[in-house]
């Protein structure tokens, strides 16, 4: 069976700046895959291109057996490919409840949407208490919870997460990663960018290491954790 996501020779540029310089990447159905790398390596750019927010300059993206290179985001999400963007991107002047409703924009099964909302509130009780508050008034951690909960509202098959732990207290990071593992157990495929390489590689099945727009290493997460180069560059040893 071909992988759920199959990326070949992907190049992405901002005007004249080549941010992603030709990468191959596979994510199999049900897998949990990490993408790690230094600041400015091109991780966010890669995820944006996969989610349809940026048009690739070259290469191909196949998702679920179809060529989706250059397909806009609003069509990809209808096929089950969702992205939690870097910096959360909650709608600041919509309430928590309205943000969740936006997550379910592509669905019209009212009863099931309501049930999923309650499920989100049960997972993140802080959001339940604040459901009629404007999202812009939430703390950073609460906004991250909301961003993840919102992305899950569209019932994705493949969820791309861009630094879900950015700027969060360790206890909140634990909570977020618990949620990520729970989502994975429900059968959602995940591709995740993470600055905390150790946590990412401990959580995921496989990993890719990105440097200056290229993938320099890939393999089983455990093997990467033991790799001396990775240990030196990303695990602070």
């Amino acid at each position, binding site marked *: 069976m071909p992988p759920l996501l199959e990326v070949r020779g992907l190049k992405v540029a901002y005007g004249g700046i080549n941010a992603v310089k030709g990468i191959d990447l596979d994510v199999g159905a049900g897998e949990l895959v990490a993408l790690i790398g230094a600041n400015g390596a091109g991780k966010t750019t890669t995820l944006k291109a996969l989610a349809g927010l940026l048009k690739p300059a070259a290469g191909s993206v196949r998702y679920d057996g179809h060529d989706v290179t250059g397909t806009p*985001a*609003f069509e990809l999400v209808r096929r089950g490919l969702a*992205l939690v963007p870097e910096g959360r*991107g909650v*709608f*600041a002047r919509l309430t928590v409840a*309205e943000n969740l*409703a*936006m997550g379910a924009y592509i669905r019209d099964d009212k009863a099931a949407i309501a049930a999923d909302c309650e499920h989100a509130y049960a997972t993140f009780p802080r959001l339940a208490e604040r459901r009629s508050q404007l999202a812009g008034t939430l703390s950073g951690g609460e906004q991250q919870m909301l961003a993840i909960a919102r992305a899950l509202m569209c019932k994705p098959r493949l969820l791309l997460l861009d630094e879900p732990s950015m700027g969060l207290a360790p206890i909140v990071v634990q909570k977020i990663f618990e949620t990520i593992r729970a989502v994975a157990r429900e059968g959602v495929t995940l591709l995740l960018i993470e600055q905390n390489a150790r946590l990412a590689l401990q959580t995921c099945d496989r990993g890719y290491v990105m440097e200056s727009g290229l993938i320099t290493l890939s393999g089983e997460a455990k093997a990467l954790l033991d790799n001396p180069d990775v240990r030196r560059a990303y695990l602070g040893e």
Partner: protein
Amino acid sequence: MDIFLQQILNGLLLGSIYALVALGYTMVYGILGLINFAHGDIVMIGALVALSVVTALGTSMPVMLVLLIATATAVAVCVALGLIIERTAYRPLRRAPRLAPLITAIGVSILIQYSAALVWGKQYMSLPEIVKPGKIEFGGAQITTTQAFIFVLACAIMAALLWFVKTSRMGRAMRATEQNPDVAGLMGVDTTRVIAFTFALGASIGAIAGVMVVLYYGQGHYFMGFMVGLKAFTAAVLGGIGNIPGAMLGGLLLGLIESLAAGYMGDITGGVFGSNYRDVYAFIVLVLVLMLRPSGLMGVSSGDRA
């Protein structure tokens, strides 16, 4: 006759029409950050289309039916025009520097004006006397039934719009697109369609406002959109451009200011600024708002637009 109350009533009535037009500016600004200077001319087209329909139908049908057909035609023409303008003039410039769409908007405005001059001529067109409005006494002041009808309809449209934007799926998508189009796309919103819808909605409300202007003044002219547009734009800025309730408040306030100033400035200044200066006050308001509170009465200062 109570002059003060009369000026208040006149102000609210005129203000409710300004408010409807201001909504078109503010909704498009909210979602695109673009001042659609052609919006006043869309109102003008609505007015002239309605005038033509009323003139053609005359008294062959009941008055209400004539007005309904005239309004429906005006709305249809204006929605089509709004969509064409969005598609051909603004959409190609969506990622261009901000000056480009602004200059384009002015160009579109001039194009519509002179196209209207070609179609309808440059003379004033008068509304045939099809309505014989009754008078309503109101604590010493007086308004016509037509005016009362305009005011009630304008308020109903505003209430419906607030409700729509607040509670409907499309309304939520409009607000999401306005705040962050990329993330709205990630939620499955086709932002191009939402933007086109916003133009159509603004144009349809503008068309109805155009019919109201015709009913209020009894005439129309290819250049009328300029003044209506500038005043409504002032109202939108006064309320806080991009803010829908703000446009409503700004419209009503501007109508009141204009009406009271026109009514009293003559006496206050010993006849120097008589009521023939009424169009000046809107611009004084515009300059003052831009100097003292550019974000308007209800606007968010640009800093916290996430």
